[in-house]
């Protein structure tokens, strides 16, 4: 029996309680790369890695001593060439010739570690998936909340749009029509009037109805901007600004308008609306000029990244914007009105203007999801800063 154990395809060795190896079989010697003579009489710690050695001394042997046997103990043995050899050991402690002897058998388990690692990795993946699932559920719940808020807002916006369309119709037809008829009947009165005393009064009616027409026309433009979605395409700003400048030159023939501008990259926008924007910006510079015959406007351009979320807190998505600074050297206005300049019919000067131009500018910039602000000081000109989002095509342009 003893001889056969020498050749059995499993690890077999015996040792005394102090760990001295008494017998070793061929399989163990071959597995570790030793001769039997090299091992017999040595302490079994010499064929264990340091962690396994500690484990044997603190857990394995005390347990074996306590209960007389142990099963399936995982140890790492140390080969003669210092390579580790994972093994699974069963042991019994017996009295042989009145001496306690520990008998060990075991098998080599090369793949156990790999399986364990795979198990740990699978467990980690499962935990990560669970965590992601929780995060996903939170995002889903947040999305649901946003959808509900959005639905309420769409409902509100639809209602307001409907009312606005009705209001627009009132301005467009029911108010314009009486003003038109008033103008025509008053003209007939002017033609037929033979009483010189009434003439100044009739002329005043004509002037006031004229003002009313202009106010209504401004309101209509404002409502048009409110109702109409921008028809977006790529716009050459250079051409647009030149066009607006030409229009102003014909309206103010005695004034030389000089525009110093950087090269303008194309932006995505509504041509008609952006033309109106630059017309009003330049028109303000011309109308509120200091020099009666010469106006200098500087337009500088910078590209920058801005958060495209404008209302929702703690949400960030930085996208490319174009910042245009339109600066004049005109009479300016009191800086206290910087924040109120965009209110409709807010007049900042007595000289001219109905207080609609900047309101229309703000509406146009809002329609393009951009930002606008104005800074001025009495007598020191004004600077309007417009920030417009660039689209993919435009952002490749060289600035």
């Amino acid at each position: 029996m003893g001889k056969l154990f020498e050749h059995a395809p499993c690890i077999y060795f015996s040792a005394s309680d102090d760990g001295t190896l008494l017998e070793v079989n061929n399989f163990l010697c071959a597995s570790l790369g030793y001769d039997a003579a090299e091992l017999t009489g040595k302490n079994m710690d010499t064929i264990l890695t340091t962690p396994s050695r500690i484990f044997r001394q603190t857990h394995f042997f005390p347990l074996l001593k306590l209960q007389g046997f142990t099963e399936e103990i995982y140890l790492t043995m140390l080969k003669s060439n210092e390579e580790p050899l994972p093994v699974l050991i069963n042991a019994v402690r017996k009295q042989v010739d009145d001496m306690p002897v520990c008998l060990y058998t075991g098998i080599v388990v090369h793949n156990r570690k790999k399986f364990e690692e795979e198990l740990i990795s699978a467990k980690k993946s499962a935990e990560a998936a669970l965590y992601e699932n929780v995060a996903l559920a939170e995002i889903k719940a947040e999305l649901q909340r946003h959808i509900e808020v959005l639905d309420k807002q769409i409902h509100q916006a639809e209602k307001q749009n409907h009312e606005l369309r009705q209001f627009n119709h009132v301005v467009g037809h029911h108010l314009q029509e009486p003003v038109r008829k008033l103008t025509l009947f008053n003209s007939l009165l002017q033609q037929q009037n033979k009483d010189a005393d009434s003439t100044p009064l009739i002329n005043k009616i004509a002037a006031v109805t004229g003002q009313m027409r202009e106010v209504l026309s401004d309101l209509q433009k404002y409502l048009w901007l409110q109702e109409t979605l921008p028809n977006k395409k790529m716009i050459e700003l250079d051409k647009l600004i030149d066009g607006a400048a030409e229009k102003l030159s014909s309206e103010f023939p005695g004034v030389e308008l000089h525009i110093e501008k950087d090269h303008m990259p194309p932006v995505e926008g509504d041509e008609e609306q952006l033309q109106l924007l630059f017309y009003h910006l330049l028109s303000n510079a011309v109308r509120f000029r200091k020099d009666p015959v010469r106006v200098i406007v500087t337009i500088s351009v910078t590209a920058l990244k801005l958060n495209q979320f404008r209302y929702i807190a703690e949400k960030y998505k930085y996208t490319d914007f174009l910042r245009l600074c339109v600066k004049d050297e005109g009479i300016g206005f009191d800086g206290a009105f910087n924040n109120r300049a965009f209110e409709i019919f807010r007049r900042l000067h007595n000289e001219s203007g109905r207080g609609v131009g900047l309101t229309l500018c703000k509406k146009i910039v809002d329609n393009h999801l951009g930002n606008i602000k104005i800074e001025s000081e009495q007598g020191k000109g004004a600077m309007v800063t417009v920030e417009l989002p660039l689209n993919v095509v435009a952002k490749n342009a060289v600035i």
Partner: protein
Amino acid sequence: MERSRTILYIEDDAEDRELMQHTAKQVGESVNFVYAENGLKALEYLTVAKNNLRLPCLIVLDLNMPVLDGKETFYKIKNEPMLETIPIVIFTSSSNPGDRSLFESLGVGFITKPYNLSDMSNIVRGMIDLCNK
């Protein structure tokens, strides 16, 4: 059928009819203006005129009207044998671009009501010219 030198102005607004009357008088009454205050009354007039073989030389049509509006009136006239050949111009205060493009695509003149008398006179002269063709 021979047409009379009569322009039918279909207009619900009394002031607008009065303004037309004034202007026609100023321009010189080389044509006769008759007025209908909505589409239905205009069709009644046209039926009688057709029976009397005295159709107008031009129809001037407002768009925003009660009972039978301008567009409906237009299609009714254009679907009526003998009436379909009478030239029509739209004379409206509507600035609806959809209305304008619809009538222009049908080859129908679309005139916006003016704000001054000289424009009004020119428009009436143009209408009389159409009648003379």
